[in-house]
């Protein structure tokens, strides 16, 4: 009877903490609004601290940080939680996203409907569980937890537009979940296990007669993840749904598509590495070409968007496409760059969705005010208004040296930073990620999947999509900030600006500390492409209650 040290139990904390918080928040009901908000924020901050502690723990303890057996069953039979480098990275990203969105919601959105905070916590629980679990069916359950919470959150605030897009979102995700189940059932039927490590170990020994069934199952599972990761042509639901969601919800959803990308990266690198015999690199071409089609679709969509909210949705699609195409090559250097890009683009997308809300609020003021003015009976005389170049204010003084309101300055600077990260322009983190990927693509040795044509197509697409997205962002930014207008300066609260500032600060930090970050991600990619590490770590886990000798 040897109890685990406390640090081992840290691995289950990202799941239990939001679950317990959600339960307490539900019991509190809708009373004690301040206490509920404080509890939710404290829990989210604690979750962030736990995620960072896990990441440091993993970094300190070699390639596979920790394996935890929640039910204390021996390995292939019970559920396992695996905290490796990739899981650590995704947990920190999810927690940072959660803290940012939650802080933003404190200003207004938490009061727009009931049960916002419990749903938010359950969403975080589903995200954390999906990143940690090492069991295929448990992955399905955590997917359903996070999806069920996301259905509720998407409806938060009400209104016909949200309900209509929710209907589409729910039906698409229900269908994807059914495909997920079919894929899991087929894989179980062929391999006889649901433990991801055990399955990966058995795959090379699957007889040739069953290999077709195995590939069909993996492909169906892949389609389910494609739909969640918004891969073209399964992504028509994303821009309307994310555009209709309330700002903190849309910004939290920025990480939902990354769950699909994560699942593909985890399962594909684990189950179909070079060494997988008859199934080596199965589906790599689908990842590469599907990802590139998605990237092209997202970039053109960004150029075509007339509203910032839709542009943000297409930028998420473009990010998904970039990641999948880069992952599909199956090369550690490229995967490391993609992971860096994943982190920076997720943080930027969260900040962008929060900014959209603040900018739209400023526009709303502009739309509301002049209504009475335009319907007034007074004719407009041509010479009553000053010539456009003179730019006079009410006292007919030329506008020289007038201070820009602080709120507008903040929005402008934040928008420029977000645009730089999203478009991947220097000197910010999006650029570092893209350069890491482009450098890896220049290496002629990586044509294992897709060949030279795929390599150069992705290279060109990465450059062109950055160009297109910067055009789209600059155009909307000019319309937003430079177009002549009499709108009053938007009123911002500190609690709304703080998360945007923090998230953008993280993007800047990723550049300043770029070397250790890239080294960590390089190690992550290396261990991902050596699945034996993951398999051995999971299989080496032993239950604590009974010593292994006593069971025999």
């Amino acid at each position, binding site marked *: 009877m040897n109890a685990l040290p406390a640090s081992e139990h840290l691995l289950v904390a990202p799941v239990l903490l939001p679950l317990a918080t959600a339960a307490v928040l539900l019991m509190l009901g809708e009373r004690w609004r301040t206490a509920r908000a404080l509890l939710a924020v404290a829990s989210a901050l604690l979750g962030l601290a736990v995620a960072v502690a896990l990441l440091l723990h993993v970094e300190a303890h070699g390639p596979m940080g920790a394996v935890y057996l929640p039910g204390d069953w021996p390995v292939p039979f019970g559920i396992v939680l695996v905290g490796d480098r990739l899981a650590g990275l995704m947990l920190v990203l999810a927690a940072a996203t959660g803290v940012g969105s939650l802080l933003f919601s404190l200003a207004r959105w938490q009061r727009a409907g009931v049960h916002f905070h419990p749903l938010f916590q359950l969403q975080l629980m589903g995200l954390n569980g999906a990143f940690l679990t090492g069991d295929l*069916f448990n992955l399905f*359950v955590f997917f*359903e937890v996070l*999806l*069920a919470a996301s*259905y509720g959150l998407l*409806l938060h605030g009400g*209104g*016909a537009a949200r*309900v*209509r897009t*929710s*209907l*589409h979102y*729910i*039906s698409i995700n*229900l*269908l994807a*979940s*059914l495909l997920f*189940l*079919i894929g*899991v*059932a*087929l894989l*179980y*039927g062929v391999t006889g296990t*649901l433990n991801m490590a055990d399955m990966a170990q058995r795959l090379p020994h699957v007889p040739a007669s069953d290999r077709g069934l195995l590939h069909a199952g993996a492909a169906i599972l892949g389609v389910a993840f494609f739909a969640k990761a918004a891969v073209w042509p399964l992504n028509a639901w994303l821009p309307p749904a994310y555009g209709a969601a309330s700002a903190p919800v849309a910004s939290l959803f920025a990480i939902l598509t990354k769950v699909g990308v994560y699942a593909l990266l985890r399962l594909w690198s684990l189950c179909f590495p070079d060494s997988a015999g008859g199934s080596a690199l199965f589906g790599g071409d689908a990842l590469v070409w599907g990802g590139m089609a998605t990237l092209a679709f997202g970039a053109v969509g960004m150029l075509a968007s007339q509203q910032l909210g839709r542009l943000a949705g297409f930028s998420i699609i473009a990010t998904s496409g970039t990641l999948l195409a880069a992952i599909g090559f199956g090369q550690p250097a490229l995967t490391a760059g993609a992971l860096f890009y994943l982190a920076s683009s997720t943080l930027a997308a969260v900040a962008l969705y929060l900014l959209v809300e603040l900018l739209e609020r400023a526009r709303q003021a502009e739309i509301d005010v002049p209504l009475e003015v335009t319907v007034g009976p007074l004719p407009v005389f041509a010479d009553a208004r000053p010539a456009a170049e003179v730019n006079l204010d009410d006292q007919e003084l030329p506008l020289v040296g007038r201070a820009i309101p602080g709120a507008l300055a903040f929005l402008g600077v934040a928008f420029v930073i977000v645009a730089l990260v999203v478009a991947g322009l220097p000197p910010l983190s999006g650029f570092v990620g893209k350069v890491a990927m482009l450098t890896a693509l220049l290496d002629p040795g990586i044509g294992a999947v897709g060949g030279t044509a795929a390599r150069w197509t992705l290279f060109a697409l990465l450059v062109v999509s950055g160009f297109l997205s910067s055009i789209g962002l600059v155009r909307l930014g000019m319309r937003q900030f430079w177009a002549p207008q009499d709108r009053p300066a938007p009123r911002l609260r500190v609690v709304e600006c703080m998360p945007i500032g923090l998230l953008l600060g993280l993007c800047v930090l990723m550049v300043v500390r770029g070397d250790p970050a890239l080294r960590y991600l390089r190690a992550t990619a290396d261990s991902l492409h050596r699945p034996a590490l993951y398999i051995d770590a999971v299989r080496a886990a032993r239950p604590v209650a009974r010593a292994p000798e006593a069971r025999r």
Partner: protein
Amino acid sequence: MEIVVSLVIGVLAASGVWLVLRPRTFQVLIGLSLLSYAVNLFIFSVGSLAIDKEPIARAGEPADLLHYTDPLPQSLVLTAIVISFATTALFLVVLLALRGLTDSDHVDAEEERP
């Protein structure tokens, strides 16, 4: 046995797909339900169909699939049933809300123009 189960799965799935592609929300709801039944039966069937076998390995008999039926797919089906039931109920609520808000039972909340 195998023929009957696979026919049932096929008919349920085909009807479900057809209904999901229909323009009325209630048809989509029924289609999703039929699809989830088909998937549940499918999961059940991957654990090797057997008649009169319990999902319990008995003492004295070898624990292979000739002597007992695999219990894992049954527990998976149980989880899948609960989840699809809950999400279908939620879908029904959203369907009614959309009907109330827009006075239309079309999935896009407006009729197609010819």
